[in-house]
């Protein structure tokens, strides 16, 4: 099975995160890591390769620095990577981003595209369905479990359990498909020393917009379908009371809740 995993480099959510002067995510001064949920997607892809054979390709769109995350991803075990890198992409909205990633996916001819259900920077959750819409393939999103039944022929049957507010849905489709996963699906492996060494030699193809047949005017700030008008740091919450429990903490808490009409 030919699997592509989408990997995004994001600012570490445990560290200071800011917007730049142009209201894009400040990636230059941030401590950048692989989007956590994508590690689960990589793990799932590797498990499928182990069970059914095939090849795993990492696909990343991002600035030069994203190459660090690509190597990190490769050290877990994927075979190769594609890095979509073009200065004109800076400032791209989700709609334009999906256009670029769909264009990059085209020639890769994946049976299965796996990604994390959301990124920790934007938390927008729209990419899998945008890609499926553009590629005309199925989207099985929000999987906490994925099973694959090879049918002998070209297509395999994919079945997911999709977490919902009421419980879960069982959703099924044939390959090719886009699947997004939550962090409940598996436990990602740590890269081994051997994996880290091997990753240095794995092929990484760098593609620019021109290679994908996408015009610079369709992406970046020029091609954006939405814009940030202004941004500001939210003032820290203040004015809160803090009491030490000296035997009356529970009563004091309820008195506060009552004063706010919650009790």
């Amino acid at each position: 099975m030919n699997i592509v995993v989408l990997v995004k480099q994001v600012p570490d959510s445990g560290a200071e995160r800011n917007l730049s002067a142009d209201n894009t995510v400040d990636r230059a001064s941030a401590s950048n890591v692989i989007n956590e949920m994508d590690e689960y997607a990589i793990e799932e892809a590797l498990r499928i390769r182990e069970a059914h054979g095939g090849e795993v390709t990492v696909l990343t769109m991002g600035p030069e620095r994203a190459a660090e995350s690509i190597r990190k991803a490769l050290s877990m075990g994927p075979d190769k990577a594609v890095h979509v890198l073009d200065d004109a992409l800076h400032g791209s909205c989700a709609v334009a981003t999906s256009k670029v990633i769909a264009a990059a996916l085209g020639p890769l001819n994946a049976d299965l595209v796996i990604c994390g259900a959301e990124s920790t920077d934007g938390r927008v959750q729209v990419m899998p369905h945008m890609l499926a819409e553009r590629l005309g393939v199925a989207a099985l999103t929000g999987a906490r479990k994925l099973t694959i039944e090879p049918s002998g022929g070209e297509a395999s049957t994919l079945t997911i359990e999709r977490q919902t507010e009421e419980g879960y849905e069982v959703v099924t489709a044939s390959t090719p498909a886009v699947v997004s996963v939550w962090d409940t699906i598996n436990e990602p492996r740590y890269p081994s020393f051997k994996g880290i060494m091997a990753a240095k030699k794995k092929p990484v193809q760098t593609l620019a917009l021109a290679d994908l047949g996408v015009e610079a005017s369709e992406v970046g700030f020029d091609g954006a379908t939405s814009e940030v008008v202004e941004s500001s740091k939210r003032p820290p919450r203040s004015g809160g009371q803090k009491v030490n429990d000296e035997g009356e903490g529970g009563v004091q808490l309820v008195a506060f809740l009552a004063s706010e009409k919650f009790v």
Partner: protein
Amino acid sequence: MAEVLVVVEATAAGVKKVTLELLTLARTLGSPSAVVLGGTGAAAAMTDKLAEYGAEKIYAAEGDEIDGHLVAPKATVLAALVRDVQPAAVLLGSTQEGKEIAARLAVKLDNGLLTDVLDLSTDGVATQTAFAGQTLVKSKVTRGLPLVTLRPNSVTPTPAPAASAPAVTSLDIALGDADRLAKVTERVAEQKGSRPELTEASIVVSGGRGVGNADNFKLVEEIADLLGAAVGASRAAVDSGFYPHQFQVGQTGKTVSPQLYVALGISGAIQHRAGMQTSKTIVAVNKDAEAPIFELTDFGVVGDLFKVVPQAAEEIRKRK
């Protein structure tokens, strides 16, 4: 006044609260039209509620074709409707499904999309937060119409001054093969008890690592039930197996924005704050006076939650 399309979400219990919020918001922007995309008979069961909140029209696409597939048919029907009526805006809930429908609609119409919006002004400027609620962002769609998903609990749902009498218009369901690729073969209800849904609850009581074990979560549930609240859990508590993942609040879990958030034994790591920082009032009980959760709280108790919480429960019972 121009129509504002509101995509209706419902559960077995009826119209979801976020839909009522959307109708309330839509009334400030134009003339609300509710769009029901569901199984056979879905619209008829909801007409009264939608009318109470001021839906001037109801569009309905119903049947197995809609209900039996994952979101793609809903987006296709909605795109046709948008092209037909040219609304002033399209509003959906910022739920998993709401965002997914909006994602497909944005591509189909080559239209901008704003998600997790807290407010939308009449000139189309949306308020959002970024980075665990620490940055406030105002943004607008610059291509196409305002296509917006609203975070649940952002607007107080208010019935219209006078209920409307909406006519129900059936929509043509003209699907392509690509809309039928992902089939929903089973829906399994898992949620236990009668507690409100986590993202829609007015009050959420969450437990963290400090709760200690799964059994002790009964204490969290007890306070929640006394307050009529939903129960949440921090990632640390979920990863430790204290409580199921679907109740996880924070990054990689649910984002909640209730009137009151009660954090018990939760230190308040940034990943947790990402899911609750826009709550209106926040209280916490934690034995560590330096815990970052106290940076957020309107009222914090530094103490042993196994002493403070039972006392609080007793006090609530006394006051009832």
